[in-house]
């Protein structure tokens, strides 16, 4: 049974190896799941290189944070998940491997449909739901939100989920060429980052017809955070959920004090009970399976080509063009 094993922090080519491990056994309450598709995220690379804030592990560890698969064996007391059942694997369970034993209770049922698309439910999909439900829940239909990194998987989900609720999105991107694509997804306005918070905020003001925007989502950090803050009305909230720049979030004093803008963080459960998480997955995966939410996939790689996948993941924008997926049994 093949797996991508990390043995230290460092460049992927030096610290991640394709290894052969014994076939997993299903213990009491466990099932063995054959992994169909597992997305690679920016964070997966940071966990490998061991950037500050990303040194959580003891080694060896198996890479991969999320994925979808099928039960192939059920252990004692795990009869609720019969072989053939499709499940979402628990977050952080090391999904870049062919088969894995997991607690049946930690798996969430998954629908049939495109495995590569569905594999993005737990992290990017859930993030978009939390952003909209927990932080923009009071934005009325017809109201606006603003986000940067709008062409990311999560950004695209935000567009689709906001549209479903009748909330308008103003989407900040780095490339003009994305405007048509995002508009087709349901974006109400697309603004190309002007490279400077005041200038970008002026474009957002114009694009939204001077709408009062109470909430903005930031996955860029550095002056990306400041830009979103500058776009908001007095007393607004910036929700940060990523840091593509690899830098700290910057909040200027004029926004914090004169305009009373708040900066908050979010995480992947955000006080939901396991039952509530299950319900969100069911709704999300339904939308993904039906195509109402659709991620752009850049490429899918088998385990044997993982180093190519890491190199591809390290590129951005036009050089990457979407999500990288690992297909452990391809």
């Amino acid at each position, binding site marked *: 049974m093949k797996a991508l094993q990390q043995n230290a922090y460092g460049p992927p080519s030096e610290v991640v190896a394709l290894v052969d491990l014994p076939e997993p056994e299903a213990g009491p309450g466990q099932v063995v799941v054959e992994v169909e598709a597992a997305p690679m995220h920016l964070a997966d690379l940071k966990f490998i290189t061991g950037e500050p*804030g990303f040194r959580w592990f003891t080694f060896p560890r198996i890479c991969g944070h999320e994925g979808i698969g099928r039960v192939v064996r059920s252990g004692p007391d795990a009869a609720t998940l019969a072989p053939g059942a499709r499940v979402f694997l628990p977050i952080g369970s090391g999904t870049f491997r062919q088969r894995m034993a997991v607690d049946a209770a930690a798996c969430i049922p998954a629908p049939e449909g495109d495995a590569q698309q569905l594999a993005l439910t737990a992290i990017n999909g859930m993030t978009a739901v939390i952003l909209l439900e927990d932080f923009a829940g009071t934005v009325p239909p017809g109201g606006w939100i603003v986000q940067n990194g709008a062409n990311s998987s999560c950004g695209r989900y935000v567009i689709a989920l906001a549209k479903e609720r009748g909330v308008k999105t103003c989407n900040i991107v780095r490339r003009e060429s994305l405007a048509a694509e995002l508009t087709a997804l349901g974006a109400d306005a697309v603004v190309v980052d002007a490279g400077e918070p005041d200038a970008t905020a002026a474009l957002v003001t114009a694009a939204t017809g001077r709408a009062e925007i109470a909430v903005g989502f930031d996955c860029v950090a550095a002056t990306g955070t*400041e830009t979103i803050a500058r776009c908001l009305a007095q007393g607004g909230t910036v929700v940060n959920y990523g840091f593509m720049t690899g830098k700290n*979030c910057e909040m200027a004093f004029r926004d914090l*004090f004169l305009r*009373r803008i708040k900066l*908050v963080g979010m995480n992947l459960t955000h006080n939901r009970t396991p039952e509530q998480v299950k319900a969100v997955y069911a709704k999300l995966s339904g939308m993904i399976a039906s195509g109402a939410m659709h991620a752009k996939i850049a490429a899918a790689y088998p385990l044997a080509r993982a180093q190519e996948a890491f190199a591809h993941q390290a590129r951005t924008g036009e050089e990457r063009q979407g999500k990288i997926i690992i297909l452990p049994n391809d």
Partner: protein
Amino acid sequence: MLVLRQIGHGDPTTALLLADEPEPAPGPGEVVVAMEIAPLHGSELMNLRDPTRVPPTALPRIPGTEGVGRIVAKAADVTGFEIGQRVFPPKYSGLLRERVAVKAEQCYAAPGDCPAENLAIVYTMGLTAWLLLEDYAKLPAGSWIVHDAANSSIGRIIIALARGRGLRTVNVVRRPGLDTALKALGGDAVVVDPGNADDLARAVAAATNGAEICVGLDMIGGPLAGRIARCLAPGGTLVLYGGTGGAAAEIDFMDLHRRDLTVTGMGLSRAFNRRSAGEKAAIMAELGRLAARGVIATPIAAVYGLRDYRSAFAHLAREHAGKILIAFDRTRDAP
């Protein structure tokens, strides 16, 4: 009577002009306050140097953010204030003048039986510290808070007020040697900022036996704001109140993400003005009492007469330990 005016931008010797002018008379609803003492804040220097803070169209203006004085005249329709009574005149009303006519309803009663110096910074720094703790740190007795610039005037008042509220403070400072002084004020732990977030969080955890710290107060901004954030427990709030460093607050994504932090700013005017007139008067009365008793106090670097304003502003521009005050009692003036 003497009035100090900002007439331009640049060096205090050319940007400021001291003039002798007619005495003010109280208009309807007004009292005339004879100033006793007024602090010079660092912002006064920035106002002289930076035309984006004070545009040329705002000139001439009279500097002086806050202070304390006694009522020497009042309009017939003013009630609730008596001649001779000490008051805090309204902030930013141009207080570097010997006598000023102000709306009585914007004045707060001040204790009359203590040195005026005790009351000099009640209305900005005392009030800022009080509102920070009241609005953001209403925590069970024994809870810890962490704050930086702990040896600044506001920092020291935060220590004393927090102690009075049963809170424990971790006091982050830039240099060693302040342990005894800040503990004497009521501080519980003093930590020298090691300059990086993980080391600061470790030092704070060691000083508090790993206590959960839900509230952090930051006066400086920049990377230091992010270092204070690293010390906070999940769900914690970082409140910025000064921005003295001038740089944007830098907060690490992982701190926001893994610990659900909130970063917010408290502006003094808004925090105070959203309260009722009665609440405001009660807060100022309590702060006045605390200042009169010396519970909240600030070290004083020097006291200058208004005629000696050039020396006072020159001192303000130098490194100084404590506040620089202007006293309006002419017996202080050099002959």
